[in-house]
């Protein structure tokens, strides 16, 4: 072992130490929680119907919200990736806003929107209720995740050379055909990865629900909200179980992203 090799290993170790610090911190959080809860309690509370009602509500709302997000996210992401918008920086700022504003503020803004003139009339006319009801959960999740989704989709289209599209066009295919037969299949892995990330982000959404929807037990309490609701009403075991499930979902979906990701990295 010569001198420079030792130096190299010192160099690598000193940087890697910081990775270890972060890992230890995360491990500390998760392990203390697991020890505090204990397996028997986890199984006990996981077997309660309340946990599963909340889980199913989450599954429902997030799936719908994700599909809606993708419907907006794919065209907008493609447009942003391929064309230049006028004052593009301002436009991109606006698109990024819903996910960057503190979620609790987004919730307040949503509440205000559904109390302001055109929408309040529409909802009254249709006789549906958005705020303080299940559709509100979907609206909130959609609003927050859609900008996330646009960014991700844009990133996955950015990695695809427009050359392929240009070739298809020069061979006589029109743009819609090129989009559906060339661009989308090429970006498939990236898009699936985005879909999973968006879904996981929707599952994690809580702050904007706080004021916009409020937690009605068994009806609008998606899992993150159920964690809070159980915590403030003293069922810490149930809250911890739900929180563990949230962590499992997050890790599971990130693993799925890694598996399908292809070129798209986990982030």
């Amino acid at each position, binding site marked *: 072992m010569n001198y420079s090799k030792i130096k190299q290993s010192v160099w690598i170790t000193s*940087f890697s*130490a910081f990775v270890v610090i972060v890992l230890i911190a995360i491990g500390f959080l998760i392990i203390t929680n697991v020890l505090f809860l204990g397996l028997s309690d986890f199984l006990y509370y996981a077997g309660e119907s309340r946990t599963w009602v909340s889980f199913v509500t989450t599954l429902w709302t997030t799936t719908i919200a994700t599909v809606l997000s993708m419907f907006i996210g794919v065209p*907008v992401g493609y447009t942003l990736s391929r064309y230049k918008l006028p004052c593009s920086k301002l436009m991109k*700022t606006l698109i990024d806003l819903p996910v960057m504003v503190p979620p609790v503020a987004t919730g307040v803004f949503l509440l205000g929107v559904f109390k302001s003139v055109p929408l309040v009339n529409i909802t009254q006319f249709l006789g549906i209720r958005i705020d303080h009801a299940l559709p509100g959960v979907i609206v909130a999740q959609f609003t927050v995740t859609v900008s996330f989704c646009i960014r991700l989709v844009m990133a996955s289209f950015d990695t695809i050379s427009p050359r392929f599209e240009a070739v298809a066009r020069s061979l006589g295919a029109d743009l819609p055909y090129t989009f559906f037969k060339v661009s989308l299949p090429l970006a498939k892995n990236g898009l699936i990865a985005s879909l999973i990330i968006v879904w996981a982000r929707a599952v994690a959404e809580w702050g904007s629900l706080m004021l916009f929807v409020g937690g009605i037990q068994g009806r609008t309490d998606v899992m993150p909200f159920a964690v809070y609701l159980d915590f403030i009403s003293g069922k810490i075991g149930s809250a911890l179980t739900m929180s563990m499930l949230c962590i499992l979902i997050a890790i599971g979906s990130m693993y799925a992203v890694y598996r399908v990701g292809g070129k798209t990295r986990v982030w």
Partner: protein
Amino acid sequence: MLYTGSEVKHVSGSKWFISILYAITVLFILYVCWLFLSNTGHTDIQSILQLVNRNWFWRSVKLSLVTSFITTIIAILIGIPAAYALSRFEIPGKTFIDIIFASVIVLPASSIGLCLIVAFQYEPVLKIQEALGFRIVHSLPSIVIAQLVHAIAFGIKAWRVAFDNVNPRFEQVARTLGSSRIRTFWKITLPQSKIGIIAGIILAWTRAMAEFGAVLLFSSTFRNRHISQFSDITRFLGLDRADILPISMLLEIECGNIEQGIAIAFVLLMITVLSVYTLNKIGGKGVLS
């Protein structure tokens, strides 16, 4: 290689498809604008003036800024070296580390808050705190810890992209020309990835500023605490008896002062617009997604 804005030259006949794409984009942007602008009707000048005249409001602004700056600095000190290590070295179990770090980003804030409070009140940890003579839960430093979780996860992600975008070739060339590792890092790697790193810093700061759920569960509220609870330094800086802005907003609205709550929401919105606009202006590629 990224191909942003590399338009496919279109022949005639596909105009309608492009119009649809643009229409959806514009509609979405209008939705966002409308989301924020329609709320101006729910607040008024009078309640904004009232809010500005309240002592706790300015203390809240200060507290928010101070805690988020401290958070960002800690995130930088730990996150940048970690991101560099993840970007350059073959660390064993890297996939696992990647997955864990990425999942922190999609963790619900309530879950993080609960994890933090349980972890810091866990028996052995509590004993250590007792021996050292301080208690983290429900104290001002706890705000920084709660903000740090998301901030550092977003920061590491951004910085890693920034380092990945630097071609290691340059570093190798500098090394063969006799530059030391530290010198190469300072003179080649950092300047080359400057934009990405700054973008990451802004991103981490914005996240720290926006953090709300974890703080609510971990630190509780401070506004009604007695002044003797706070140390001389915090009193001198005017950080006592204040909550960070998102929590002040929640408290105002839950107590029925909706106009003032929305006014605070607009303050938060303006801060976010500024930082996101800066992010887009300096254009750290791949940082935001």
